[in-house]
């Protein structure tokens, strides 16, 4: 296990302990004791200077596990108090991520740095390469003036001894939209106005400093109340646990839920609706185009048509709309693509609607591969809480539930093969295609993971109104690999895909529209 792996292990262990504490007869006291149980007196200190520091950091992680922001902790409030506050809380916090800044200490700031390997050579290629005059020679060695350095890396590439390096900050590097930054004080913080909740930083930080604010206590409270609590499980879950999804249903019920719905059920509706919308949009664009050509021909094909500029907005493509990270990107960074995005609801949207219709008083919990869906859940009045795969896993561990020993339970509605494939890159476009009688109408273009490059690409498509290679349906997934690459997934993608394939092979084809 690498460092990040260890950090994930600690995060999960903390979740298990929080759940155990909740299930005990003294939640507050048991929560207070978590740091001591994990780092008892006399224990060899695994990572940091001393056991006290370790406990302080574990305390911070517990705060996030209880659903509170770590940044606002002033260290005077005990975990017992936090536990009490969590029990009393009625609302959940809209901001999903919180940074354990004490862990940022171990990480140097993003800068260009001249190492001892600098030979102070005569060529001074670094100095020549720097366009900002940031490099000077002091005592025969290159020195960088950080106030002038623009981090362009020209000197890094120019140095014949490879003596200059760029020190990277993993969280900053992983963020596709520049929302997380280590500030002057050396602490990372997230700019909520920019953050698209993709969760990359949670996985990238080797210290595990970025936490999701868990809603697990709120969910356990709902289960304990006598309300009906219904879990809605995302399609990608089929690759995340031992056993099959029918045993998983029984396991989730054994964990305290009243019923389980496959979100793939909603994915079937999404696929059908998106296919309908796609056909309409493409017909409309064709019509507009021929109108424009007619006009052009009528006017003899010459001259500047004053309306031509307007007509350029003919849309040659449509993009999918089911990825929550992508939807946040559109809202916060890419409004120009909005007109091209399908208005079809997400699979969660339709599933929650169905559940709500059936059980208007029930509490609904979406079981999610990623943090971005927390944002979607927050915006959707039919979704009360979101719990990720790691949290569900922790619940199984705390309750000692063995999925493979469970009986199989059927779902109200069997979902299609294509809907069950929604969770990996290419699956959504494929389902839209399969929904149409004339499958050849769809020419998919797949954005497999949002990063600076693919965001630039999308921007370009939005400005020109045209996609690459005459493609007309752009499937966008924020995570590389799709939802099976979500930040809260547990299985490696290859095995996850294999398991989903097995399930899909035994499912019927999607209905055509």
């Amino acid at each position: 296990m690498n460092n990040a792996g260890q950090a994930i292990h600690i995060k999960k262990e903390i979740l298990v302990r929080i759940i155990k504490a909740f299930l005990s007869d003294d939640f507050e006291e048991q929560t207070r004791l978590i740091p001591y149980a994990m780092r008892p007196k006399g224990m060899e200190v695994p990572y940091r200077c001393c056991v006290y520091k370790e406990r302080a950091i574990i305390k911070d992680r517990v705060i996030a596990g209880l659903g509170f922001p770590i940044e606002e902790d002033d260290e005077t409030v005990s975990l017992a108090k936090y536990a009490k506050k969590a029990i009393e809380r009625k609302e959940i916090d809209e901001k999903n991520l919180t940074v354990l800044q004490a862990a940022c200490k171990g990480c140097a700031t993003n800068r260009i740095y001249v190492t001892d390997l600098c030979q102070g050579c005569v060529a001074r290629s670094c100095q020549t390469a720097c366009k900002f005059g940031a490099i000077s020679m002091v005592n025969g060695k290159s020195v960088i003036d950080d106030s002038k350095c623009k981090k362009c890396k020209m000197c890094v590439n120019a140095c014949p001894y490879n003596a200059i390096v760029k020190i990277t900050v993993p969280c900053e590097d992983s963020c596709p939209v520049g929302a997380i930054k280590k500030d002057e004080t050396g602490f990372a913080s997230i700019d909520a106005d920019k953050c698209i909740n993709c969760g990359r930083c949670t996985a990238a930080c080797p210290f595990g400093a970025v936490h999701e604010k868990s809603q697990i206590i709120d969910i356990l409270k709902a289960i304990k109340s006598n309300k009906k609590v219904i879990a809605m499980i995302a399609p990608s879950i089929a690759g995340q646990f031992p056993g099959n999804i029918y045993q998983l249903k029984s396991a989730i019920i054994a964990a305290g839920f009243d019923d389980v719905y496959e979100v793939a059920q909603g994915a079937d509706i999404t696929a059908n609706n998106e296919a309908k919308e796609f056909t309409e949009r493409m017909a409309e664009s064709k019509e507009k185009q021929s109108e424009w050509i007619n006009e052009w021909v009528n006017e003899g094909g010459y001259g500047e048509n004053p309306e031509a500029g307007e007509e350029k907005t003919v849309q040659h493509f449509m993009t999918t709309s089911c990825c929550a990270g992508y939807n946040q990107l559109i809202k916060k960074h890419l409004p120009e693509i909005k007109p091209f995005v399908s208005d079809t609801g997400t699979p969660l949207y339709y599933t929650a609607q169905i559940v709500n219709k059936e059980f208007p008083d029930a509490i609904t919990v979406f079981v999610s591969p990623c943090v971005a869906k927390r944002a979607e859940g927050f915006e959707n009045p039919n979704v009360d809480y979101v719990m990720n795969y790691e949290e569900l896993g922790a619940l199984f561990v705390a309750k000692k539930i063995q999925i493979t020993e469970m009986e199989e339970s059927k779902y109200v509605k069997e979902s299609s093969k294509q809907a069950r494939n929604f969770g990996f890159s290419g699956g959504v476009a494929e389902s839209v295609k399969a929904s149409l009688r004339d499958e050849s109408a769809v020419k998919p273009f797949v954005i497999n993971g949002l990063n600076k490059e693919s965001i630039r690409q999308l921007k370009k498509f939005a400005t020109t109104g045209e996609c690459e290679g005459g493609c007309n349906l752009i499937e966008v997934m924020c995570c590389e690999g799709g939802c099976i690459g979500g930040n809260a997934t547990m299985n490696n993608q290859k095995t996850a895909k294999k398991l989903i394939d097995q399930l899909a092979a035994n499912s019927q084809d999607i209905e055509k529209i």
Partner: protein
Amino acid sequence: MAKIEVKVCLGTTCFVMGGSNLQELNDIIPQRYGDKVEVSGSNCLNLCSIHWEYSKAPYVKVDEEVVTEATVEKVLEVIDRKLGNN
């Protein structure tokens, strides 16, 4: 020499606590050791419920030896040691 038997726990606790990554062993072990070592997945080995010790999960058994907080590297090390490779 008798075959070394590796049992990777694929019970829920182990799987959740990181055992999912150990499925790689299914490919690595036959490649490296041919038929000297046999690897298989297993249901809960009942190690997780003895003490309240999920924090030591995932577990792998190499013959009778229990590897706690197992990683691919750790397991391979134990196999190598047993085979006298180092």
